[in-house]
């Protein structure tokens, strides 16, 4: 927490505070810190490229400006070829965040689509979709990304976004499917069905709104991974090296030996920015988790007995939800998944 405190004094991003006063205050502290931290960088991404002091690609030929440590005119110093690090950083934040958010949107949309349809179609469809999801979960994404992007001649932003989204949907799909299965059996869904609502309307108006926190968490996770992956890809050099992103900054710093030359101002700012954005996302996600699961919240307000926190008991679990309506073929498919071993309700049936 100490790492983020100095920045949280600035109330940059206060989502929907006007809409419902008091909601911001009821949010877990971690989520607040995360939102503020992230807000600062989103702000930097929006106005940053407009206020860059120099053209990030401009190579100042003055020999004294090669690898100059930070000073008044160049607040974050210069690179070996006399480029302004601060300008590169401001442009780079925009490009990196833009990519990550777009990947988050596309991949999360795919996860919702796959997860909800798997749970709703059920039976063999469910098992086939789950199988595909599980297969893509175990295949490591980064090496595949490198091969895919390595073959592309034009490694532009769009290509990277598409390839990343294509590989990052399975995580979300898995949890959203599980949640949809749990919600599907609830009474209010049966009620909606009885009143004659169409399946599509049930999905869009009853199911999805109940999964908003889960979808948000999956979005935040995807954005987090997309930032890490895109920066790592750029660092290896599988990207458009002529554009300025946080990853390409690190690539040039590494390939021109910034570390060996002692030019910390060249590689620390982009790396630290990635770390701070990442920390903001992790905090936000933990906050969302706590919002959905009150047990994880700070124990400060809970009552204590003999040094232990007293907690409310679990609601009685509804049995048989997961195993309901599983035919022979789909039971066969299901038996190949790891979860078949851990399903409580499947027990002695087979």
């Amino acid at each position: 927490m100490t790492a983020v405190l100095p920045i949280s004094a600035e109330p940059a991003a206060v989502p929907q505070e006007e809409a419902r006063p008091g909601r911001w205050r009821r949010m877990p502290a971690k989520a607040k810190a995360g939102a503020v931290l992230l807000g600062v960088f989103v702000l930097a991404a929006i106005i940053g490229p407009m206020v860059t002091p120099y053209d990030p690609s401009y190579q100042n030929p003055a020999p004294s400006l090669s690898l100059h440590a930070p000073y008044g005119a160049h607040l974050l110093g210069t690179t070996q070829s006399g480029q302004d690090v601060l300008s590169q950083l401001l442009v780079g934040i925009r490009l990196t965040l833009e990519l990550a958010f777009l990947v988050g949107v596309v991949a999360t949309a795919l996860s919702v689509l796959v997860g909800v349809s798997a749970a709703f179609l059920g039976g063999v469809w469910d098992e086939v979709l789950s199988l595909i999801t599980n297969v893509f979960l175990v295949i490591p994404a980064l090496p595949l990304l490198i091969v895919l992007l390595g073959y592309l001649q034009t490694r532009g932003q769009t290509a990277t976004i598409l390839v990343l989204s294509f590989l990052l949907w399975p995580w979300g799909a898995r949890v959203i499917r599980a949640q949809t299965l749990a919600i599907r059996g609830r009474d209010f869904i049966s009620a909606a069905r009885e009143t004659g609502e169409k399946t599509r309307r049930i999905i869009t108006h009853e199911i999805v709104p109940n999964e908003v926190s889960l979808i948000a968490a999956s979005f935040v996770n995807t954005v987090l991974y997309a930032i890490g992956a895109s920066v790592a890809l750029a660092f290896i050099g599988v990207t458009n090296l002529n554009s300025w992103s946080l990853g390409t900054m690190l690539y040039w710093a590494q390939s021109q030996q910034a570390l060996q030359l002692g030019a910390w101002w060249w590689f620390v700012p982009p790396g630290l920015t990635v770390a701070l954005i990442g920390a903001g996302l992790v905090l936000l996600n933990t906050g969302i988790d706590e919002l959905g699961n009150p047990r994880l919240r700070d124990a400060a307000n809970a009552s204590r007995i003999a040094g232990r926190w007293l907690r409310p008991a679990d609601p009685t679990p509804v049995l048989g939800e997961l195993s309901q309506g599983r035919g022979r073929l789909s039971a066969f498919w299901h038996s190949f998944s790891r979860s078949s071993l851990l399903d409580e309700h499947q027990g002695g049936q087979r």
Partner: protein
Amino acid sequence: MSFILRRLVFYLVAAWVALTINFFIPRAMPGNAVQSVMSKFPNLQPAAYRALEALLGVGHPGSIWNQYVSYLDDVLHFNFGTDVSQYPASVSSLLVETLPWTIVLVGTATVIAFLVGTVLGIVAGWRHGGSLDRALPGLMFLQAIPYFFFALILLELLAIRVHVFPIGQGYDGGLIPGWHWDFISSALYHSLLPALTIVLTSIAGWMLQMRNVMITTIGEDYVIAAQAKGLPNRRVIYTYAARNALLPQLQGFGLAVGFVVSGALVMEIVFSYPGIGLLLLNAVTSNDYPLMQAIFLVITFTVLLANLIVDIIIVFADPRARARAAL
């Protein structure tokens, strides 16, 4: 059919999917290995194209189906063709050279991080709101740092500013690799900083996950009953709560292995560590497509194997699973 056997079938399917994707990528994308060699040596005659194809084993004679069958056959025999960038060497010999480095380093460091993170998570979950629990946001900051950037910082602080650790490489330049003490001690010494990077950056993830499951498990009735019975805390924590909380943790481990390996690969580049990651970088910079693809396959197979091992551990750790696996 036992559970392990079923999982084996699943991993074979996953491996087959990876193989098939790998087969179709070069055929669906523009650019190939021969073109990359041709562009590197501009004075080659266009007639050399066919000769190069034959030499590199990347020519596509016959129908797609025949190509596919011979491709699967090649992979089964660990034959990935001849390398483009380090020409006479075969791709498989390069892999055999580098794979042990990565597996020993990344494997050991990941297991250490998992064990330490899990134990810390147990403590943080039990003492919910305690000092270790409150340190979590700081640890999460560590987790958010990209592996390779953390590696850069450690290198700067501990190898360049303070000469405690060597600057990169897998062993001292003057040594000949072999099973003698000089080499082994040097390799161990060189692996300390990369291992530290993996442990420090991945520990928070394991800890957070274990803590969350622990907190939920502690709320279960049987844990409260065990406490009410007056069992010693140690027994309640480890035999009642942690043992059950460990199962989702193990599942998570299986899924996260691929993520950790990917991060570790990029980290190797920073340390010039002679593993698969550095080989991958060389493959990328020299447009060495056969090598890139072979590395993708080898990493995928390793991750699948790690997952299978996790499944076996789950069966042994969970009596319910053991009973069900026998069905």
